[in-house]
């Protein structure tokens, strides 16, 4: 469950996010779309604790990200838009590290890492250095790292960047499974057709403000679908 209540953030007088409120229920996949510089990444960064809101409140499974950051982060999985990793670690070492700092038990981590590597098709390269991975393979690894501790909330910023058709399909299936397990997913993306397929609700953000929220069925009935809505609201 994600609750964002009246959150604002500005940088040197520029309002990146203004009075943003949203609730994403358990098992819901919520898509956040909007033009470049609309405030999608800033919103997600505030939800992860990388940026602190100037005002407002963010609750992840009832834990305030500002007041109880450790508790909030322990239920959170995060996939950033630009995922810089530790280049000199192998994939498995990186996963061991991420699991350990999320307090995952050794036995739990081992089986979970194996299963995630199999799902994302990177098992064969688990002892390779990260520096040798292509962009798409890195993105798969970042997803593994975001899911290794069984998060209750998943925040994804531009999930499809660099992924091939196999990766996109796998990701869609995984999001579906996570939704059935009751995980709240919030994804910010420019891939409108994928957002239209995967998300239960889609919010449109412009100038740091959430200007509309529509149900999937509602959008399908609109002229031009999500792309048409984007063109109308994005102007």
């Amino acid at each position: 469950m994600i609750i964002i209540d009246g959150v604002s953030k500005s940088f040197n007088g520029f309002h990146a996010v203004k009075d943003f409120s949203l609730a994403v229920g358990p098992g819901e996949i919520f898509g956040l779309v909007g033009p470049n510089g609309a405030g999608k990444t800033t919103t997600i960064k505030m939800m992860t604790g990388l940026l602190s809101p100037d005002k407002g409140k963010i609750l992840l499974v009832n834990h305030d990200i500002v007041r109880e950051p450790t508790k909030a982060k322990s239920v959170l999985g995060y996939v950033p838009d630009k995922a810089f990793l530790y280049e000199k670690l192998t994939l498995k070492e990186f996963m061991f590290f991420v699991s350990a700092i999320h307090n995952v038990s050794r036995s739990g981590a081992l089986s979970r890492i194996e299963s995630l590597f199999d799902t994302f098709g990177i098992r064969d390269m688990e002892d390779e250095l990260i520096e040798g991975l292509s962009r798409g393979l890195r993105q798969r690894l970042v997803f593994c790292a975001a899911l290794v501790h069984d998060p209750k909330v998943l925040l994804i910023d531009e999930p499809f960047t660099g992924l091939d058709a196999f990766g996109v399909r796998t990701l869609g299936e995984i999001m579906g499974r996570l939704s059935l397990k009751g995980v709240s997913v919030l994804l910010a993306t420019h891939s409108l057709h994928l957002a239209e397929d995967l998300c239960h609700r889609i919010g449109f953000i412009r100038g740091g403000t959430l200007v509309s929220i529509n149900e999937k069925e509602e959008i399908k009935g609109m002229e031009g679908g999500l792309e048409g809505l984007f063109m109308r609201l994005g102007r």
Partner: protein
Amino acid sequence: MFSLFLRQKILMLRNSFTLGGLMRRLPFILLGAGLWLLLYFGTCRVLSFLRVTGTFGEILSEKLLSLVLSGVAVFLLISTVITSLSSFYLSRDIPFLRARPVETGDILKLKSFESVLLSSWTAALFTMPVFVAYGASYRAPALYYAVSSLSFLLLILIAGGMGMTAAHLLTRVFPAKRSREFLLGLGLLLFLVFYFAIKSSLPEGYASPQEFLKTFTLFKTDAPLFPGYWVTKTLLPAIKGRTPDVLYMTLLFGGSALFLFTADVAGRRLYCRNVEKIGPSWDGRGPLPERSYPRPGVAVFFKDIRVFFRDTGQWPQIFIIGALVAVYIYNFKSMPLRALMGLYPFAKEVLVIVNLFMAGLVLTAMAARFLFTSVSFEGRAFWVIRSAPLSLRRFLWSKFLYGFVPLTAIVTVLVSVTNYLLKVDGPILLLSEGTALLLSVSVSGLGAGLGAVFPKFEYENIASVAVGMGAMTFMLIALGLVTVTLSAGAWGYYTYAAKIRAGGFHTAESIPIALCLLFVLLINAAAFYLPMRVGIKKLRTMQF
């Protein structure tokens, strides 16, 4: 096409000359100018000392020139190989250049020019005062300056040709990055061998200047196959106003043409294939054993250790520290302790303090490089830490341990070995070891804490973080801490030892000494605790 590339490089250089940039570089410019003058006046002084002894002095001055040019030639060669590896194979513009409709020959020309220029400008700049000093000492004609400039340019081209050929051949066999780090290590090793060879061949004390001169003449500098020798042989007649030897001039011209040709052939044959095979290399890692799964409390620590040893960019600094420690210990070994003890009764104690101060300098320099940079070492992957349920207190403590353990080990070994060489025992031994340990804790805490206060997550090379404003602030505070700790400790010990030597030490007299020790403990505790506390707070509120 080559002139187009050259123009772009010149534009980049011109754009980098700003008033702000100049002001930032001003300390280095002044330092360089000081070193230039020091070399000039130093060479003049040595020459005036050597040349008063007539023919014998002339032989010595020739030997000195030959020795300098041999050293410069070796430096140029190693420097060109290292620069060529970076320039031809590791430079960021290589993919850009290779993706354009540019002939390989043009890329080779541009990179050759870049390699030779970058590898030789420092050598040229700092050999110049030696040439000028020789010219001034011999009242050489203008011809000498023209010949010395030309022959030195030819020496640069010979070393450049050899270096570029070696770089292409090395990259054919080893990965470029590995070759570069290996050569940096080799360069340092050669310096150490050279340093210890000269030190061990000179007696520790000279009965007379003649004894020194006699030892100096024993150095063999004649090496007819060595380009440095050809330059010496070309310069010697010119310095006295005679025509330079045609044989050696021919060797210099022929040699430079030959080696530039071999570099060109090696480049044309190997460059494209070498560039294609550049990439991450397999370095013998097997599958990761399951037992290596870290406990949450030490996950960051073990991750840092792994990354540190795999990052070959860190290795040259380890080599440099190793070389410094070796030279440091060797100098203490050759200290005339007995003579000093005869001159001053507290000589040993003074040396212990000097030793501790030197160890403090080493500690500060290492802490600046490895502890101050430890938080920044996360780089742009810091989001992994910040979005994880990891306490930032635990994170910073991991960083402290990562630097504290090796630094304390090095400083303890350094102080213990030098104490042993100085034959230190009794209370001063305990005091010295205790102070070294105390400073290791406080300076490490200061480094880790201030590193968190002034983090820099975006950089080309982690070493650049250790020379920024934050690092300078750390260095100044750490050096102040070392100085105050040692001064207070020295005062306490001197007061105690002087009373003992005077015949008695009363319990009442121990109060100021105890207060002094308490003061030392308090400032060291503050130097550890406060920056760590502020650092944790800064990390908590940081916007990433």
